Every structure is written in C-alpha cells, then in structure tokens.
C-alpha cells in the first residue's frame, strides 16, 4: 500500500471512528431526552439482540452456520433464570455463569461436528436447538414448560433507565471484545479458513481448532445476551428461541451486511426499530419486516454495509476524477 492510499484509508477509518463516537454519545443521552419508557424498553431489547447478532456473526465468519443459535440464547436465559430463581444465586453471578455454561454446550456440538463439512454442523446445531427447546418445554415447573418461565430475579430495582445503561454498557463491552477478537491474528486466520479450506490447510492452520474457538466465543456471547435479557424481562418463553428466532438473528446479520463488523449492529436496529415504528398496523406489521428483507435481497445484496461501501467507493472515484480533471487543466 502506498502512502497516499494509506492516508485515504486512515481518513475513512477516522471518519468511521467519528461516527461511532457520535452514535455512542447519542445513545448515551437518549434516556435524558426521552420520556417514553416504552421506547427505552425497545432500545434495551435492541441492545441485547445486537449482542446476539454479533455473536452469530463471529461464528459465521469462520465459515459455519449455527442454525440453532437462538436456542443457545435460550440456554443462557434459562440457565441464568433457573439458577437465580431456584438456587437463589445473585444474577451478577448467574449471568456470567450462564454464558460460560452456554459456551460449554456450544463447544460440545462444535467438537462433535468439527471434522465434517459445514453443512453438518449447521444441521447438528439446528436439531440440537430444537431438542433444547423441546426439553425446556418438557421441564414442568422447573422451566415453566409451554406457558413460559416467570419470576426471574430482577435487577436494578426494575428501573428502565438503569437497565438501559446496563444493556448499553454490556453491548459496547461485548462489541469491543468481539472486535478485538475478529482483528486479532486468530480472527484473521479464522477468516482465511472460511475463504478456503485447502489454502488454510496448506499453510498449516488447524481448521478444527479455529472453528471450535469461533463457536466457543459466539456461544459465550449469545448466552450472555440471553441471560441478561431474561433478567430484564422477568418472564421468558421457549418460542423466543426457536428456529425462526435463529433465522431472524441471521436476518439482522445479513441485512446489516455480513462482511462488515458493524453490519449486525445496524441490521438489528433496522429490523427491530422500523417494524416497531409501524406497530399500529397490528396483524399486518410483519409485512414491513418482509418488505425490508426483499428490499435488501433484490436491491442491496451486500446489506447496509455494502451500500455504504459502494457509496464511499463512488465518492472516491468521483473525487479522483475531479482531481484528474483539475490536473489536466
């Protein structure tokens, strides 16, 4: 890379940092500006789902498709909720504990399927996910069964504003950790694997090890999101963690743009907030979500991030042309 293009890259990067700082500050002052507790509630949900979507992408970039990822969010949620309710442990302990527990389950699946093609891991994850949901449904009073699990130990005296900052903080910390991971040497190797198995093998990267690691990290964070969400809601139901729930996590990632770290964040905001805005349509409101999906499938194949990249590239080439024109004059 020559000095000029490095300078250009630095400039776009610092512009990116600028946007990030502004966004964080904006999210930080929202509770001071907004009266509506309901809006805060929606945003808290978005924060937890951002963590889940980011954790999903951490696995996807290693070339694997955990089609039961939402069930692992459920594992975190039920593990923490049950430990707090039945063992009377403090949520401060059960939430990280549940994240670790989810990680262990995730690793067990990954190890079982690590030597096979990605499709089999995807299916293993899917079927285990369904089994987990069904086992939770069959848990009787321990899990509340089909009617849902309630009475999960609350935190922060159920204050929406406190929860808002806690969830925002958790989201920023998780995002920072996952960002560090993705751009570490391990993360780079992992992406190399997803691009080509043969190449990765020929340069001596141990495929299975990296794939399992990706699942471990992704499962930890999705468990964390699930656990936090459970204590925030107080009541959870298995239907929030079924196959379609996993598919929606995928949609958050894909609409945002799977090739960009910030894709899942933007995607979660788009796919939760926009349909929420059209809540008054009641039965018809899912059409909005579907409409967003079709819009991205047919018109913006790279997701939101792809759109931004294309726009940036266009501006750059326009500038270059202008510079050339000026030089020609």
């Amino acid at each position, binding site marked *: 890379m020559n000095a000029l293009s490095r300078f250009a890259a630095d400039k776009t990067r610092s512009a990116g940092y600028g946007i990030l700082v502004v966004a964080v500050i904006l999210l930080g002052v929202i509770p001071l500006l907004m009266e509506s507790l309901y809006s805060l509630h929606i945003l808290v949900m978005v924060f937890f789902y951002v963590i889940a979507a980011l954790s999903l992408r951490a696995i996807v970039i290693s070339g694997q498709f955990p089609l039961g990822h939402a069930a692992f969010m459920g594992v975190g949620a039920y593990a923490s909720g049950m430990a707090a309710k039945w063992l009377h442990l403090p949520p401060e302990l059960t939430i990280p504990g549940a994240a670790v527990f989810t990680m262990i389950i995730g690793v067990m699946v990954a190890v079982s399927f690590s030597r096979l093609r990605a499709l089999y891991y995807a299916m293993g994850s899917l079927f285990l996910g369904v*089994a987990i949901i*069904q086992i939770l*449904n069959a848990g009787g009073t321990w899990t509340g069964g089909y009617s849902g699990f309630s009475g999960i130990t609350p935190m922060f005296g159920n204050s929406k504003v406190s929860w808002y900052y806690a969830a925002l903080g958790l989201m920023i910390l998780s995002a920072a950790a996952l960002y560090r991971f993705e751009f570490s040497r391990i993360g780079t190797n992992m992406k190399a694997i997803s691009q080509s198995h043969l190449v990765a093998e020929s340069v001596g990267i141990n495929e299975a090890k990296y794939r399992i690691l990706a699942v471990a990290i992704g499962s930890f964070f999705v468990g964390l999101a699930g656990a936090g969400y459970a204590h925030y809601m107080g009541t959870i139901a298995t239907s929030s963690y079924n196959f379609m729930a996993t598919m929606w996590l995928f949609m958050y990632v894909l609409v945002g743009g799977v090739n960009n770290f910030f894709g899942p964040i933007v995607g979660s905001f788009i796919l939760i907030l926009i349909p929420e805005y059209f809540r008054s349509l009641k039965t018809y409101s899912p059409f909005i979500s579907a409409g967003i999906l079709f819009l991205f499938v047919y018109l913006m194949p790279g997701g939101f991030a792809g759109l931004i990249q294309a726009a940036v590239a266009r501006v750059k080439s326009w500038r270059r042309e202008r510079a050339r024109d000026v030089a020609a004059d």
Partner: protein
Amino acid sequence: MEQVVATIFNVLILSSMYILVALGFAFLFNMLGILNLAHGAVYMVGGYIGFALINSAGVNPWVAILIATLIMAGFGVVLERFCFRPFTGDFNRIVMVGVGINVVLQTAVNALLGTRMQALPSFFDGYLRFGVVSVSYQRITIFLIGAALLVLVSWFVRRTKHGQQMQAISQDIEGAALSGINVHRVSALACAIGSGMAALAGCLMGSYLMLSPYMGDLMLIKALVLVILAGIGSIGGIFVTGLILGGLDAVAPVIFDGAVADAIPYIVVVVVLLLRPRGFFGREA
C-alpha cells in the same frame, strides 16, 4: 388392540405426510443446494386454501384439494423463477428470501383468516370395523391418498425422462447442463411438484389434525430432519427416515406426557446425527 391399530394408522399417516413434504424440499436441496425456507409455509397455505374453498366457497372437498394443490404448484414455479433462480449459489440471499416469503404467507393467512386453529371437514363419515377394532374411513382415505402419491412420485423420479433429469442434476449439475438438460426448466418443474405435494399434504393434515398459521415452521424442521438423516442426495432414504420419525411422533405420546413426547423424537435425532453425521444413506464422502 384398539389402541394398537389406531397407533399404527397414526404412524402410517404421519410418515406419509412427512415424506410428501420432505421429498419436495429434497428435490431443490439435492439439485441446487437450495435451502427452501418457504416450503413449510407453502404446506400451510395449501391447507388453508383447501379449508377456505370448502368452508367459504362450498366447493366439493376433492375439488378443493385439487385446486389448492394446483395453485401452490403454480406458486412453486413463481418461487423458483423469481426467488431462487436469480440467487443460485448465494446461500445468504436464498435464506433471506425464504424467510421473507415465509413471513408474507403467515401474515397473509393471519390477516385473512385469523390465528384461530381450523380444521378441514371430513370427506368420509363412518368407520371400517373388523371385530372389536374400528378405523375411520377418513383416516384410511388420507393414508391411501398419501401412499398412492408417494408411489406415483417414486415412479416419476425413477422412470420418467424428467425424473431422471432431476436425478442427473442432483448428481452432477454441470454434467446435466452439458447433456443439454434445461436445468432451469427442470428446477421449476421440481419446485412445482414439490410445492404441490406440500400443499396436498397440508390439506390432508388439516383434516387429520388442525390448521394453524405456524404449522409450517414445525413441518419444515421435520422435512429437514428427514432429508439430513436420510443423507444428502438420497431420495429413497427419506422413506425410511420418514417412517422412523413418523413412528416416533406417533408412538411417543402413547407412552409419555405431552411435552416429553414432543421432546423425545428430537433427542433421538440428535443422538442419531452424532452417531451417523452423514445420515443413513448419504452419498458424499
């Protein structure tokens, strides 16, 4: 005795319905690697079209089922042409479009007919009795239609030119194109047949159990179970895994309570997949 015969019929009916839906899914999955997430919704909508025609328009049940099947077969052609073909090989976008279609169909049914569970009326009243045992004609008919259709489809895939072309595409898509097979047209045909079979299964299941706008999600997972446990590329294996899953689903409730019975089949599936990750009759190494 009564219980045993009833259970056997449950096994046969559930198995044949699962296989009908799973075959349609497997066609596209094996041929083009398309994960058709709208397939469950097609099954569900087929059932509701049959229901609406019989209950609201007073159409003869047989005619209604035929119309529902044809409508969804037509929908299958549209699905292949505009939702899958443009994105061949792009897993992400095919998943997105499948979820989108799924949401649209579920929401449409919810909005038009409400979320209340509905049932298709019986086509036949009365019971077939031998000695102490009796089976309703309704169940016998459902099973016979399902079984006849399965025989017909196996014959189609094995013996007809288009069926063999479908097999050729799933075994080597480039070899198929180079043989002059119009891959797009055969795929559209496969999607039409698959969607029609799913719709027909939806009607039959709607008269056997109940219709619900979300019944497709569950059926989609069952179809995936059948296809994956059979092994990718295997059509015959789906008949075996269909009988296994149908058996588990029909027998478990006899022995266990509701929620436990729902859980057992999937625990078995996970264990089987751990022991035989490539399924029973998988073709790839």
